[in-house]
């Protein structure tokens, strides 16, 4: 295994991860809810009476993040995203992620962060499954095709 030292960002990634943990902690302890993006968004597709305002408040916060990030962070932390996938691949990926996360009742945040944090065997199985599928997909894309 070769480590990609050029792109490895231990400090920013660990700090970012800790912030994700803090956000999840506030959400469960103060709002009493699990911070799972696919569930919060999925609940709006379609919206249900009396169950939308909290979801929208959270989404607006998420959408405000880039503006705040660009305003407060030094330029070295702002990098242009690298997107190799074609539009067609992005569409197929979006469909798979939309259907898959709803079918599995969770994604990287709900199962990966919150589920593993509360030591849920169900979330461990989900995380192992999506990680494995991700490893296989990238292996096929980069080393087989």
């Amino acid at each position: 295994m070769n480590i990609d030292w050029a792109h490895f960002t231990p400090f920013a990634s660990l700090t970012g991860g800790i912030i994700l943990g803090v956000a999840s902690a506030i959400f469960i302890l103060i709002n009493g809810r699990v911070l799972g993006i696919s569930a919060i968004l999925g609940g709006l597709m379609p919206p249900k009476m009396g169950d939308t305002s909290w979801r929208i408040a959270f989404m607006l916060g998420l959408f405000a993040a880039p503006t705040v990030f660009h305003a407060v962070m030094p330029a070295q932390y702002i990098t242009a995203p690298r997107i190799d996938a074609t539009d067609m691949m992005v569409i197929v990926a979006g469909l798979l992620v939309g259907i898959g996360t709803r079918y599995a009742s969770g994604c990287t945040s709900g199962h990966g962060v919150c589920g593993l944090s509360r030591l849920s065997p169900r979330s461990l199985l989900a995380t192992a499954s999506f990680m494995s599928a991700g490893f296989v997909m990238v292996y096929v894309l980069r080393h087989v095709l």
Partner: protein
Amino acid sequence: MIHKNHLYRVVEFAVGLLFGFGLMLSGMTDPGKVVGFLDLFGTWDPSLALVMGGAIMVGFFAFTVAKKRTTSFFGGMLRLPTTNRMDKPLVIGSLLFGAGWGLAGFCPGPALVSMADGQPKALVFVLAMLVGMLGFELMDRFVHAPRKAKLNAA
């Protein structure tokens, strides 16, 4: 007087903001970084392991406290998941999700943040994801639920 519901809305907004900020700082909003992490047999970028590690380190303490409580700090309901089922939808759904994640390097949170940051491909991804979510919802309502009802009636 500030209604308690307003306070909840403020916290939800702040948590969304904090979470989005964390995603950007961690590098999760860069599909190249995600794919670099998933590329175990190429040149591997371990950054995302630290993202998960850092988040779970904090989350573990929070959920340990949450499990011992019945109400939130604001006195509201504490909604911890109650299902423990290790079933087919969980595994198949996760495999589909993982395949999509590897294909474009986006998962739901980072895609939404990246879209708000003005990335055209993130917008395309989010639109497709919403179609997928809505499609699942319709399948569930008009195919799965009637089938289940039929089984129960039989």
